């Protein structure tokens, strides 16, 4: 539609924008890290980081906030990718934070370590003196993300304060800060879930097998399917059965639900997404806790 021979297809334009952000942040901040969860967004972000600095190595470490409740596939994939990219991996453990008494483990049926991650993350930021953490957050995910900046300012307590956020004009990102403050930087801000999958397909990027349909032991709760696992407590009337499922988001086992699906390859996944009647975050129990669940966690220093 553009009246010029010099146009990029939209995925290349998005890629270019993300690479610009990654290079900009890596240049203005003194010590960055990439928050790696093992999910598709952080995998795409890793791929973009590789491209942004090639032929040099990625000039920052990856940081994994480990709740201890991971799918085996996620950890295996993480270790494989880190080896391929030759980056340094730092694992910060929620288990350690619990042992030290920094946080108290939740109890009960829906207990999750998800919100405890914020404390572990802030400890890791302080101990490693990071002033920039790249996150895979996208604006299409949730209403608290729709207003997120690309360079998102956090005070010395790791808090996101709407009032402290700076107007972001054109491509001119302001990373100036005081000692002790840090930034979350979101290179994928303008990508949608479908863009991520189209890019994964276009670039033939590997993702954990959890994203594709497979047979798994699951049980039902509140109309959703959860993986049967030792870290998820089941009630007496919750029975385990084998079903063909896939995961739309991959997080901590305790708060990520599966969907029944036969989409066992990328084309089928993309096709399924186009006809899905639910949003991606609808599969995250952590967001269902209240209307402002994600916003509340962000203010406490969440990703």
């Amino acid at each position, binding site marked *: 539609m553009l009246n010029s021979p010099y146009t*990029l297809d939209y995925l290349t334009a998005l*890629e270019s924008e993300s690479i610009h952000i990654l290079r900009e942040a890596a240049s203005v901040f003194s010590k960055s890290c990439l928050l790696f969860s093992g999910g598709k967004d952080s995998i795409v972000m890793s791929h973009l980081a590789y491209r942004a600095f090639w032929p040099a*190595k990625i000039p920052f470490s990856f940081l994994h906030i480990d709740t201890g409740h991971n799918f085996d596939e996620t950890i295996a994939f993480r270790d494989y990718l880190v080896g391929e990219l030759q980056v340094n991996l730092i694992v910060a453990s929620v288990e350690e934070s619990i042992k030290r008494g920094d946080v108290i483990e939740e109890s009960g049926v829906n207990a999750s370590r998800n919100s405890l991650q914020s404390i572990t993350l802030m400890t890791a930021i302080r101990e490693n003196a990071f002033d920039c953490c790249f996150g895979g957050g996208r604006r299409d995910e949730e209403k608290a993300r729709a207003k997120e900046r690309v360079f998102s300012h956090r005070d010395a307590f790791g808090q996101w304060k709407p009032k402290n956020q*700076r107007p972001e004009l*054109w491509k001119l990102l302001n990373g100036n800060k005081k000692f002790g403050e840090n930034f979350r930087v979101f290179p994928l801000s303008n990508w949608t879930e479908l863009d991520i999958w189209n890019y994964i397909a276009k670039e033939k990027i590997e993702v954990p097998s959890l994203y594709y349909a497979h047979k798994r032991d699951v049980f039902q709760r509140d109309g959703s399917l959860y993986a049967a696992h030792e870290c998820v407590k089941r009630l007496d009337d919750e029975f385990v059965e084998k079903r063909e499922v896939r995961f739309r988001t991959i997080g901590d086992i305790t708060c990520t639900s599966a969907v029944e699906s036969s989409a066992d390859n990328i084309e089928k996944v993309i096709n399924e997404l186009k006809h899905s*009647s639910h949003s991606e975050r609808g599969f995250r129990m952590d967001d269902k806790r209240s209307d402002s669940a994600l916003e509340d966690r962000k*203010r406490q220093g969440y990703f």
Partner: protein
Amino acid sequence: METRQLQADQLRFAVIGSVDDGKSTLIGRLFYDTHSLVQDQIESLRTEKNSSELNLAHLTDGLKDEREQGITIDVAYRFFSTEKRKFIVVDCPGHIEYTRNMVTGVSHCNAAVILIDATRGIRTQTKRHAFITSLMGVKHLVVCVNKIDLVSDKEKVFEDIKNNFTTFMSQLSIPDVTFIPMSALNGDNVVEKSERISWYKGTSLLQHLENLFLVTDDNHKDCRFPVQRVIRANGASKEPFRGYAGSVESGVFKKGDEVLLLPSQFKTHISEIFQYQNTVEEAFTPMSVVMTLEGDFELSRGDMIVKQNNPPQIAKELDLMVCWLNQKAFNQETRFILKHTTKETQAYVEEVLYKLNIETLKKEEEVRSVEMNDIVRLKVQCAEPLFVDKYKTNKNTGALIFIDSKTNETVGAGFVL
């Protein structure tokens, strides 16, 4: 996979107006009627559980923090797509802090949609919105005359608004302006063309946005490549790699081209252009690439690779229009950091030439203080020269931001004149 989806281009457009004009309802309508909302989102819009009535305006509801503190975080970004295009809707709240919100939102857009309430006609704020859209260099404007269902002599009301607004617009410089009568509440002329407004012969808003023939903002004439980062790597056998990473801001760079390096004024040639692992023959905006040059030069972040036949202006003294975004007053002693492309320099305001009254478009030469939302013309002195173009001819190298050196806040948006 549908190749059509991959090829579809993207339109980022701003929707400007206040709650009263029906902005939230319009955005809700666009999403609902294009089937962009999924079941769990629709459920959250029901006025009551299991009710069939939806409150579409609820889609753009603020965050808890905004509701509690009575503030508006400036801009929200929302996404939808149709068979023809992908859209990013940049939702700019129009009331308090309106100019700041608009300038921020519109700086990311190639088109703007302004709402006018048909029952109230053109108001001062409508003129402000149009003026800022023009100042920001947006080439496509759609004026939605909303709530047309609530007025009696519909066609006359619409024509009157259109004529009055066109007269006002003649003082501005937006080449493409379209008027659409609409009822966002009833969905008339939002996604589907309405049967009820049969006297109107044009298209619906969505049809218009889908088919908008974009006058590209990209400048493919003046070659500007600000160095973002120097990339060094040691090859196993070959010479060490030294490349310059950045985004092409304008112009087209080709392998072998003679280039001029700023500020050193050295001349050399481009050896290779890399788009990550691949080499490409040419690079244009907005491509992010790495260039290698013939010979060894001191070139670092903030420097610029250009062409000798049309270099940018190299200036320490800048003549700027500035939209002020902050409450704090400043004087000649106040030190700012200007961020322009990948370069930052210290600067101070030498003179406030005038303030623009954006209702009358008249210059007010006696300026006691510059306040938030003011549009002022400033003479600024920089510690180091910047490599600039006029904003009118090159947005990417004609735009800059003012950063308060004490608070680090972004306090001004500048346009090089």
